[in-house]
């Protein structure tokens, strides 16, 4: 399947419409989520949490 078929349709030579821009925006948002969501769901490294908690105790 052609790559362009996976992207929202655009008509070559025609000025972009708001609708095609919105479709691209949606497609892009979904793609970025697929690329970056993993990192937001991973547990935060223990060392980093400890660093913050130790500072919290120290500055209390």
């Amino acid at each position, binding site marked *: 399947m052609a790559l362009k078929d996976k992207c929202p349709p655009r008509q070559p030579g025609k000025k972009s419409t708001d609708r095609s821009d919105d479709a691209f925006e949606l497609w892009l948002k979904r793609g*970025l989520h697929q690329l970056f969501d993993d990192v937001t769901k991973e547990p935060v490294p223990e060392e980093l949490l400890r660093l*913050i908690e130790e500072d919290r105790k120290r500055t209390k």
Partner: protein
Amino acid sequence: MTSSFHDEMLAILPRLRVQALSLTRNRAAADDLVQDAVCNALAAQHSFTPGTNFSAWMHRILRNRFISDLRKKRETSNIDDVPASAVAGSGAHEDRLVIKELAEAMDRLPADQREALVLVVMQGMSYDELAAATGCAVGTAKSRVFRARRQLAAWLYGEERDISAVALRGAVRRLRAGRDARPAVSA
């Protein structure tokens, strides 16, 4: 310092990790960057005014740290560190290839445009927030997002490339790598 400072710090960590990955394109480097930024922020916490925009303050610290590190060692990482599951997980083969194409296209964008796009399109920041988080004018923030979006659109479907071309490029790369790795054969 009140405990809310640390609570806010904990709450923003996932977003900082995304920003760091968008800048560094490398998981390990992103983790290091977040940790360094957190250390800087903890050391400078008294300079933060409670009630002001913590998110912008924190994103800016991370960004400044990235730039400072870059100046020290110049950029050496040019590889994508696309999460494995993003390109090898569930979904159709074509979908994975398209996501891989998007990852490669993202990789080709300048770091400031990549960061702007991720913060606005994926994380839902407003242009005002992006400007505050990256220490630039609102117009510059808008322009970065606009240029990144336009460039991606041109790369991803402005050209008449298709999946077979993607596969062909991969095959050529593998052949070249195999050829370069082979010892020369004497006649």
